[in-house]
């Protein structure tokens, strides 16, 4: 009595169900739906996408290294998801506003981050890693799915203001189970809000395979809420960029929300606190290494004679330079003084807290010599 949906317990088959432009071996496959959205993307642009992905991978590796060295409390690696993040974020305009989860290092990068912007939160110095107004991006969100509703509200504001900006929200496959994410689709659909949902289906929510959340393609949920969707190969940077351009066009032109499921893979641990060998096969990881998004674009460009060893070496050097700056910014951070614990709770004076602060200041003062 209902449309048949194919279960996707198996990842190989899974990937076949998604739209792509670049095959895993780097060859270009015609895609009548997506091609028009990247007709303008020439080899120079492809090289620049590759560059971003390589730099992102380096930033990510630096994050892991800094954590291992005790300089960060935690890091959530995005290795394997570079095409999804760089491809979609490249399609954004600066005026668009992003509501991310915690794994969108590539989106932070694409929004023009300064070196320290990657680490302030993970180092435990600040609640937010960067200034939302500067990057056009809400702080990293740890509560799974909560940000999707914020994006819808922001989009309602855009609608009310009558501008053509778009709100974009990123979330994982696990997040799709949260009530908030479903409510976000409902609100977005009811108000036809200019919001784009980007689900990064990286196959895992910590130790749970995506089949715990859904045994069916996640992109298949959106149409039931009246939201058009596309399921795209998340390791194909061109397909990701094309899908995002489609979605942004759709939202920007007043047609309401759009939904992208990017099928990708988390190659590293969930976070630096995680040990994925406890729950997943080496074979699965190996099969995804063969679908590495960076290798794929590199193969494509090399086959086209558009990439030299020098190009790659130059990019690696640039990436190392970014990583070095990030490290320096991280190590150079100065923790705020004790009383900063009270800063910024309220916008306006609060008698109770102000008194607590004063009491604590007096208490601290008793430790100061000579007092």
């Amino acid at each position: 009595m209902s449309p048949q949906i194919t279960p996707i317990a198996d990842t190989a088959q899974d990937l076949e169900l998604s739209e792509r432009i670049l095959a895993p071996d780097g060859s270009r496959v015609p895609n009548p739906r997506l091609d028009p959205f990247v007709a303008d993307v020439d080899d120079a642009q492809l090289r620049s996408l590759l560059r971003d992905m390589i730099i992102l991978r380096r930033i990510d590796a630096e994050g892991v290294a800094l954590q291992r060295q005790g300089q960060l409390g935690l890091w959530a690696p995005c290795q394997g998801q570079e095409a999804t993040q760089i491809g979609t974020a490249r399609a954004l305009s600066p005026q668009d506003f992003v509501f991310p989860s915690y794994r969108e290092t590539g989106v932070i990068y694409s929004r023009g981050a300064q070196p320290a912007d990657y680490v302030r939160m993970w180092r435990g110095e600040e609640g937010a890693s960067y200034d939302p107004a500067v990057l056009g991006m809400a702080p990293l969100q740890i509560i799974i799915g909560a940000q999707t509703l914020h994006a819808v509200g922001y989009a309602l504001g855009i609608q009310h203001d009558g501008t053509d900006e778009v709100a974009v929200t990123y979330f994982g496959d696990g997040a799709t189970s949260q009530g908030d994410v479903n409510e976000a689709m409902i609100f977005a659909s009811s108000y036809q809000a200019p919001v784009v949902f980007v689900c990064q289906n990286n196959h895992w929510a910590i130790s749970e395979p995506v089949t715990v959340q859904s045994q069916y393609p996640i992109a298949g949920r959106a149409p039931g809420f009246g939201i058009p969707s596309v399921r795209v190969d998340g390791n194909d940077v061109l397909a990701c960029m094309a899908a995002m351009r489609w979605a942004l066009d759709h939202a920007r032109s007043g047609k309401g929300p759009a939904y992208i499921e990017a099928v990708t893979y988390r190659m590293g641990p969930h976070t630096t606190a995680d040990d994925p060998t406890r729950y997943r096969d080496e074979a699965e990881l190996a099969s995804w290494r063969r679908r590495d998004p960076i290798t794929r674009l590199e193969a494509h460009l090399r086959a086209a004679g558009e990439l030299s060893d020098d190009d790659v070496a130059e990019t690696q050097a640039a990436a190392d330079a970014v990583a070095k700056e990030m490290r320096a910014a991280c190590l150079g951070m100065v923790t705020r003084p004790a009383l900063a614990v009270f800063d910024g709770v309220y916008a306006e004076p609060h008698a109770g807290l102000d008194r607590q602060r004063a009491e604590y200041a007096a208490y601290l003062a008793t430790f100061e010599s000579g007092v």
Partner: protein
Amino acid sequence: MTLGKALGAGLRRAMQDDDKVVLLGEDIGRLGGVFRITDGLLDEFGAARVIDTPLAESGIVGTAVGLAFRGYRPVVEIQFDGFVYPAFDQIVAQVAKLHYRTQGRVKMPLTIRIPWAGGIGAAEHHSESPEAYFVHTAGLRVVAVSNPQDAYRSLRQAIASDDPVIFFEPKRLYHHKGEVELDAPLADAPPMGLARVVRAGTDATLITYGAMVSTALQAAEAAEDEGISLEVIDLRSLSPVDYDSVAASVRKTGRVVVAHEASREAGVAAEVIASITERCFEYLESAPLRVTGHDVPYPPAKLEKYHLPDLDRLLDAVDRVLDRPNSLTGADA
């Protein structure tokens, strides 16, 4: 003007003053809300500013957070007190924390209006007193009104505040009338955080808020007949509590009763008594007492009169705090 109408007038005024003020809630548009507080606002301000939402409280508050990110000042109506819990995560983990998380780069000038508390013979979940949850949550301000004048003024103050405010409206007073100065400049009003001595007295201090302020005043009158002078304080702001005013009164009377409808364990009265004890220990002549709802889920309507503190229970506590058992209730006589 009734308290309900005063709230409506406050909303209208706030919307006129600032076009970033938008309202969101269930049934607040055409219907004007189940309590008619937003009556007429849809016609006046249009559907873009008076937004009937899908039936999902987390969605409502989460959407309001996004509007605040965009520079709006959303005012959310939760239909009844017992329906705020699905939004608890968005309130506690987002609304309360975003200002701190971003060190003020993102402001959360939300007002969350909650028709509140019992005594109206309602079905389950329609008579809750959840204020302590929000008082315990750093980053929120909590206001509870008890009369039309305060309702009008503090709702406007809440909306104008750059901080999130949980705004409790005692639903059994919606039809109660009182004078409202509609045109007095907001700048001249007492700040939102201040308590009010509703009645001056010398023998004991009765501290409460919301609908129980009038019960407390009745108690003070009854006590006066027996020659006992009670001071009655309406806290008005539950976070922060205006402990300067409270302590001034306690230093004078030395005896305290704190009353509310909410249940007792870790409720607001516990907070007030612990703080009073810290600040005024040497002035206390007897143990401060609590008169509260019992530590039971809100009971079925036919039993609510046994749950809610009433005049007799207040007087009984006053008797005890004055060390004269059963003199006021006269029950033993």
